[in-house]
């Protein structure tokens, strides 16, 4: 690399055009606005949660203190969101690959539309579907699973007779986050540089090997980003989970097919808020504060993961 001669420092006298100035103003303004809104939410949550944080343990619903109240909910939130992603991400990547690399044009288009349509379905519909259609369907497989796969903690049983279990909530969540993950990942695959695809094919890669060498590494940070988007949505999803799990309440368990799973934080707030009074309200908001913190942390971790191997990233 040739060294360039150092230019003497010089005053920038280029006049700022009005368009530039307006754009700079608008974009800075929006950035500040987002920060202000975020700070506002945080302040609201902390002040409203404060009475619960300082209240004596026996005043908290359940009578054992805030931590004992929130911890099962947090567990339910995390396990449902994470397992939903475990189902949704591989499926989304597979669908995106199929659409981009394998499907004939007409099928690819139709499939794309269907996925996008899925994103437009309101969550109450997913809730109804999970409660009334999916739940009954899972009853028989769940009892089979508890009998033969009972050694796996997820299927320990006893199976719920209504089927309104954590398993159904997870499947519903997976279906709900599928469209956004698929859309983002597909967008990334479509931008895989032809240069890299050809590089792989020219050394004798099959199509699948080409995907592994060029498309997946190129799309890697998009896959992570999309997963985090999905995770954020799954963590916060309220109505669908509330409807499926409205009848269940319980402690921490990996058992997904019985009826004593804890609900998620968001669903619990939706279910309990109408009847809550006094410290109960503040307790619910405190659980919301925890959810807020978790979501923020998830996003920050996602950033860190995406940035970690920037050197090796696709965009150069």
């Amino acid at each position, binding site marked *: 690399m040739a060294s360039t001669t150092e230019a003497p420092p010089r005053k920038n006298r280029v006049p700022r055009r009005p368009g530039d100035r307006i754009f700079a103003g608008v974009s800075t303004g929006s950035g500040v606005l987002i920060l202000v809104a975020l700070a506002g939410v945080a302040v609201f949550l902390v002040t409203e949660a404060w009475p619960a944080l300082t209240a004596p343990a026996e005043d908290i619903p359940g009578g054992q203190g805030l931590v004992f109240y929130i911890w099962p909910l947090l567990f339910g939130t995390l396990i449902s969101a994470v397992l939903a992603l475990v189902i949704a991400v591989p499926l989304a990547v597979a669908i995106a690959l199929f659409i981009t690399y394998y499907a004939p044009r007409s099928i690819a288009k139709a499939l794309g539309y269907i996925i996008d349509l899925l994103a437009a379905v309101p969550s109450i519909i997913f809730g109804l579907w999970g409660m009334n259609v999916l739940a009954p369907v899972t009853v028989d497989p769940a009892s089979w699973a508890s009998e033969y796969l009972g050694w796996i903690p997820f299927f320990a049983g006893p199976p719920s007779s209504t089927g309104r279990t954590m398993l159904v909530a997870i499947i519903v969540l997976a279906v709900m986050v599928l469209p956004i993950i698929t859309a983002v990942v597909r967008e990334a695959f479509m931008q895989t540089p032809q240069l890299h695809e050809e590089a792989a*094919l020219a*050394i004798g890669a099959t199509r699948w090997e080409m995907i592994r060498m060029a498309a997946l590494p190129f799309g890697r940070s998009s896959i992570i980003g999309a997963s985090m988007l999905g995770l954020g949505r799954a963590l916060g999803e309220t109505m669908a989970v509330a409807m499926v799990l409205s009848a269940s309440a319980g402690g921490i368990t990996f058992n997904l097919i019985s009826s004593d799973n804890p609900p998620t934080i968001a669903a619990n707030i939706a279910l309990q808020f109408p009847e809550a009074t006094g410290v109960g309200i503040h307790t619910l908001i405190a659980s919301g504060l925890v959810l807020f913190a978790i979501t923020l942390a998830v996003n920050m971790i996602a950033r860190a993961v995406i940035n970690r191997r920037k050197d090796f990233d696709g965009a150069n």
Partner: protein
Amino acid sequence: MAKRIEVKDLDIYYDKFLAVQGVSMTIQPRSVTALIGPSGCGKSTFLRTLNRMHELVPNARVEGSVVMDDDDLYGANVDPVNVRRQIGMVFQRANPFPTMSIYDNVAAGLKLNNKRLKKSDMDDLVERSLKSANLWEEVKDRLHKPGSGLSGGQQQRLCIARAIAVQPEVLLMDEPCSALDPISTQAIEDLMLELKENYTIVIVTHNMQQAARVSDTTGFFNLQGVGKPGELVEIDETTRIFSTPSQKATEDYISGRFG
């Protein structure tokens, strides 16, 4: 290694558009064959049909035959993947895999097809390929750094190392130096002269001095006319093409009196 390619009456279509018509030539093993001609006359198109890379374009197809040492590359049961394992390609813009280290770039082809190689064998092959590409000395201390951190000329040599690591018979190069500075170009030209000891090399170039310097045989492509398909005007020993070509069009092109 190094095989002869026999092309006969090759027509190349992009869907209904006939891009190149009636090419017949013999590409000799252990030699450099240069393809020259004005832009858009179908040099890249022709080159890419030699390892069936043109099939990436939907509805691109050929009529005629391409035979490598008795193997018909377009035979009914021939998998293009196998063709490309034997006929490697280097592109105009260096395209190392950006997410891979220098080492992994060279090893990429070796890892294909579930080939199980011992680590030490892999190390040897990577080293040998990088040495053959005259890149070893420059990168041996940073094999596990990303390939995208190299200079343009080094990246192009990395791509050559990657291509020869799978030990192909033939190496196709589509204007491999057109994005490089003169010093890097010189390095690649030197490399070609070394590589032809073991490989059959076909290079498309815009640079006639380059064709004259590196090639044994030169083919001149030209358009038959505006909106007409490209054709191979003539192919002959490089010294003959650049001194006493048999076609007037070739002479005009070589001497810069074109059109």
